[in-house]
């Protein structure tokens, strides 16, 4: 089919272009600007080439933070995606209980990040927190302030509590869009429960699952507020994730150049991993 080509149509893109320029490109460019310059104060800058990038890539501290970050996101995805699917599969399909479930599930999503952090910070305290106190009373040696493993466990459980709902709600929406005829056909074909999941529900959910994985990956990879409120990055550097480290560099030490280079590398890593997820998860769809 021949479609008319009219290059003036590009003008229609201009408003969006202007908006994106102000919201993303210009702020990003100021960061790029800082990342290639050094200063001794007095607002006087001089060219530093890729020096800061070199420094960031060579930094053991940042490499360790990146390692922790990847581990954290991997654990989060490995728990939240299957758990979210499981919850969605077991939610009532319609009626009063479906509505109630939806409201209850949405509640954690409505709580601000720092409030979530505060809740769990108090909840886990051994002296006054319900969780910490109970565990201590049961004779378990639990203390997220001193113990690395306990700190990790607390932050992971907190994130699972906070965000599994998102995955579940997305999957639920995907499941709701499957016409009844598919289930009826499966019953007629005598498909097992597993086959229904594997060949009907999972393929139909793949679109929303991609969104869920990307959202959860990006969010968990950029996590800052909750661990900062609960553990402050400690004990030691045990829960110092990338963004906590970045803020330390930028605001704590006021190393603008390294922080800018750090930000850009951080951004590219997220972009790269998201692209990998996207490519892998859509590859099967396009296969003949």
């Amino acid at each position: 089919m021949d479609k008319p080509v009219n290059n003036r149509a590009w003008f229609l893109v201009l408003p969006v272009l202007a908006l994106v320029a102000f919201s993303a490109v210009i702020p990003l460019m100021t960061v790029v600007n800082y990342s290639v310059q050094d200063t001794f104060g007095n607002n006087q800058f001089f060219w530093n080439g890729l020096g800061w990038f070199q420094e960031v890539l060579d930094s053991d501290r940042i490499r360790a933070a990146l390692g922790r970050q990847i581990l954290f996101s991997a654990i989060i995805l490995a728990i939240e995606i299957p758990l979210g699917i499981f919850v969605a599969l077991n939610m009532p399909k319609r009626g009063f209980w479906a509505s109630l479930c939806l409201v209850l599930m949405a509640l954690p999503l409505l709580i601000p990040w720092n409030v979530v952090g505060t809740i769990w910070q108090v909840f886990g305290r051994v002296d006054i927190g319900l969780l910490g106190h109970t565990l201590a009373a049961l004779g378990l040696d639990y203390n997220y302030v001193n113990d690395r493993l306990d700190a990790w466990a607390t932050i992971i459980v907190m994130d699972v509590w906070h965000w599994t709902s998102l995955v579940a709600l997305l999957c639920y929406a995907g499941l709701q869009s499957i016409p009844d005829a598919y289930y009826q056909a499966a019953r007629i074909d005598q498909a097992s429960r597993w086959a229904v999941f594997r060949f009907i529900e999972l393929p139909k959910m793949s679109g929303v699952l991609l969104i869920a994985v990307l959202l959860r990956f990006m969010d968990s990879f950029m996590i800052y507020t909750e661990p900062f409120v609960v553990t402050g990055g400690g004990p030691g550097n045990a829960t110092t994730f990338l963004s906590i480290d970045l803020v330390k560099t930028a605001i704590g030490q006021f190393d603008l150049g390294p922080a800018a280079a750090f930000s850009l590398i951080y951004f590219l890593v997220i972009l790269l991993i998201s692209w990998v997820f996207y490519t892998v998860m859509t590859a099967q769809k396009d296969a003949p």
Partner: protein
Amino acid sequence: MARITLDDLAHSYLPRPAGDDDFALKPMTLTWQDGGAYALLGSSGCGKSTLLNIISGLLVPSRGRVLFGDRDVTALPTAARNIAQVFQFPVVYDTMTVRQNLAFPLKNRGMPAAQIAARVAEVAAMIGMADTLDRRARGLTADAKQKISLGRGMVRQDVNAILFDEPLTVIDPHMKWELRTQLKSLHRQFGHTMIYVTHDQTEALTFADQVVVMSEGRVVQAGTPQALFDRPEHTFVGYFIGSPGMNLLDAEVRGDRATVAGAQIALPGDHGLPQGRVQIGIRPEFVTPAAGGPGGDGGGLPFRLERVEDVGHHRILRGRAGDQPLTMLLPEDRPIPAGIDRAVPATAHLHVYADDWRVAPVTGERAA
């Protein structure tokens, strides 16, 4: 395979149906012979899909029984009934190949692999997809997907019946014709009982030996296409089947005479004195235009021509008899009489309806 009997079956989607209106399916008793090709015909929302789902066991009726042969299957789940169903929209397993899709129902029933392969090859040839067996189902066109659904319905040889729920809705018109012909020949070849739900009279009449016409949850007539055409038992059958539908004119009936729009016409027998809303029905094929001229009387009804539609091999004459609409069919080779002002119905094809149901003549009814 088995005979299917619906015994005093009725269904309501409400938990406690109060009146007749609460029933999506009004009480009915029907028997479908083993190996027959049946169509369930009716407009949207008349309950035909409800009836189909009851037969396939996706729905449990609120009243009555479903029998396969002599076995009561009313309470049995779908899987235990051994039926196949093809739905309105193609249902394929996206991530599987065409081959895996066709093999799926057999595999789930634990058939040996060699037998599955043979059967799949056979069905693939039937639906004309032998060369696309290894394609993934996801990327195929709607009609290819629907062919896979048809194939999955056909792949099991021992099914009690194959149910089709408006299976050709999403198919291109020229493919429709081809698939319907294919279904028909498959039916002849394998002799499965087939029940075909549609709102398209052409589909129903070309596919089925027996057509069950439904209206508002009620079976209004079950019969051969010929019987539905020649002797509609209900006004709905009259105007739903046939193109254009049957003419229905309010009339006063007394014995073997009817008075319509001030004119008297003869009826094919003595109909007594029917009560309620009395109408006479005549198919447009059996009304001939005539010119009586002023004072002259060619018999029949007064007619005022309003519009002529030329549809190729015949013309449709639309007009009014008195103040009631009347349609006639005129073969292409017959001229419209000059000064047309009468419409003459063929007496043998006249029917009398009281409150929409046909009134059989007391005497002199010819054998159908």
